[in-house]
């Protein structure tokens, strides 16, 4: 086998193994960061679309549409203003409405939000379009004071079918009291959906109304007897949100009735949010943060190019003699310039390959962490064209970083460099 330019570059890189590895690692971190951010940007958007599922509208009495989505679907906080029973009935009776699932928030269990709703929540609403609820164990609630646990909620609490629990009034961190008088029984555990609903305890709405009817009665009469569903008045039948789906043709998600329905509901004083639009708005806001993150990754990438330059620049002092010998043997100035520039690009390429591997491993690690901690399913997406673009950018930057040391190699004085050491 003969000696080629590549042999010289390879020997040069391996002779400074520590410097080569650390410099390439710096590039790898920058490339990895950039790829993970790019992959997560789109994947995150898709993940946030999970949860709103196949509803068209979220109807609440919140002050803004975005807040209503954050509270009503992502459980960011308890909705403040209730919808009356009469208003709920009005929405449910609208002929343009195909689905109107009431829900009520405000209670919690072990720091997890409680969503009181009806069995229709599991039968008619799919948390992700085309992916209906599936029970890992048990069934939906059929009686007041029965609960169904989201997959993550079951993991966190350790509750199993048949276990009993008491719910607290108020959201996590702001609980005012525990409804000790009412014991709930776990009747179902859901499979993971990759949506915020996984961290939720679902309770029967009639049970929730009963508890709050009892609270009302006790406020008036501290010695009031135990309240049953029969003691609920229309005033107790409040909800904080309604998941609405407008009537549409079979097999179609589009609905001609959606616009007029939303308009009328807004005229009636409701806050009507279209979750997909609100999530897009949210991502426009978050998108600015992404730009900052990408800018940071780009800065790290430029820093890594500078570190390549410094590493090669420092190595030039030791390599003057080697380069001078190559010149004596017949290497032109242009060729030694090219050798150093290619070596720099090779460092960039090594780093970029490492970065792609880091991104693949890191992206899935981040996704797993998000799934475990927040219950959000994110699937990092690495389009080949992005990978190519980032790799080519890294190699180009590295090659540019090699210009200064390559110029040094180009200008090396052979006579001075080969002078025997004194």
């Amino acid at each position, binding site marked *: 086998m003969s000696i080629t330019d590549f042999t010289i570059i390879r020997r040069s890189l391996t002779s400074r193994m520590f410097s080569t590895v650390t410099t390439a690692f710096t590039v790898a971190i920058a490339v990895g960061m950039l790829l993970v951010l790019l992959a997560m940007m789109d994947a995150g958007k898709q993940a946030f679309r999970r949860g709103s599922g196949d509803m068209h509208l979220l109807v609440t009495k919140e002050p803004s549409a975005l807040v209503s989505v954050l509270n009503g679907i992502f459980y960011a906080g308890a909705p403040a203003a209730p919808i009356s029973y009469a208003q709920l009935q009005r929405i449910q009776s609208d002929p343009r409405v195909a689905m109107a699932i009431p829900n009520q928030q405000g209670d919690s269990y072990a720091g997890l939000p409680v969503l009181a709703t009806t069995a229709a929540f599991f039968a008619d609403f799919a948390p992700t379009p085309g992916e209906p609820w599936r029970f890992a164990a048990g069934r939906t609630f059929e009686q007041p004071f029965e609960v169904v646990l989201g997959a993550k909620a079951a993991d966190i609490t350790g509750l199993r079918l048949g276990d009993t629990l008491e719910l607290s009034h108020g959201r996590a961190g702001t609980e005012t009291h525990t409804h000790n008088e009412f014991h709930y029984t776990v009747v179902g555990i859901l499979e993971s959906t990759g949506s915020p609903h996984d961290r939720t305890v679902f309770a029967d709405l009639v049970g929730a109304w009963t508890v709050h009817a009892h609270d009302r009665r006790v406020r008036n009469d501290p010695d009031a007897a135990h309240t049953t569903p029969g003691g609920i008045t229309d005033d107790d039948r409040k909800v904080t949100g309604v998941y609405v789906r407008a009537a549409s043709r079979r097999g179609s998600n589009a609905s001609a009735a959606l616009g007029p329905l939303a308009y009328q509901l807004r005229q009636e004083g409701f806050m009507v949010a279209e979750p997909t639009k609100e999530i897009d708005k949210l991502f426009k806001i978050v998108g600015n943060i992404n730009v900052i993150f990408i800018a940071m990754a780009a800065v790290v990438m430029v820093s890594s190019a500078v570190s390549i330059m410094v590493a090669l620049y420092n190595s030039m002092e030791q390599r003057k003699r080697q380069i001078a010998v190559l010149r004596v043997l017949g290497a032109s100035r*242009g060729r030694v310039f090219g050798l150093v520039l290619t070596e720099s690009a090779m460092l960039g390429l090594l780093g970029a390959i490492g970065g792609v591997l880091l991104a693949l491993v890191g992206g899935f690690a981040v996704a797993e962490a998000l799934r475990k901690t927040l219950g959000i399913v994110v699937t990092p997406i690495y389009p080949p064209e992005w990978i190519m673009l980032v790799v080519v950018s890294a190699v180009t930057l590295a090659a540019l970083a090699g210009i200064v040391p390559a110029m040094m190699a180009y200008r090396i004085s052979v006579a001075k460099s080969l002078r025997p*050491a004194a």
Partner: protein
Amino acid sequence: MPESPALHIEKLRFQYSPRDPVVIDIDSLDVAAGEQVLLTGTSGRGKSTLLYLVAGLMEPTGGRVLVNGQDIHAMSGHTRDRFRGTSIGMIFQTFNLLPGFSAAENVMLALMFSDVPRREHRDRALALLETLGVERPNAAADELSIGQQQRVAVARAIACRPALVLADEPTASLDPDNAAAAMDLIQTACTESGAALLCVSHDPAMADRFARRASLHELSASTA
């Protein structure tokens, strides 16, 4: 038509800058093909500078240097580098073998810039090293003994079958016995490859080895 000398120097002048003293001022010097010439002179008088001027690694202030009949300083940079790689071999006092490369690879590096087909590089390097008595051609150059390194340096200098070998104080760091052995090796290798040898040295013991000797002081036009 008479054969061109391996080296022809004509009115060669060199000074680092117009304000600096003249370092090289040679009116004329010819080295015939296959001839071996010793150039003597005290340290710091420009002997090594002369070799770098002959090799085209430094630019003269004036004059011409013809190697094998070709004016090396009239060539473009790339052509001159290529010409040097094929027509001139250099041997240094400290050998200047590349660490991290084996003995054979050091010789192959010289072939890399020649017209010798790549597939022949390894065989040619190994054959040359064997002829010169290098026992471990695949050992790293810096792991070899001084004597073996010297042989590798000679092999590298004659690998491309140059017309001219330039030796810069090749025995300066050796004791008398090893110096004699090294010069035997260099002179024999040049004789066998047909290369002319221009050896610079400040060692008076070298004089008896060369039929033709000159001192840089005598060659200097300013002292003529």
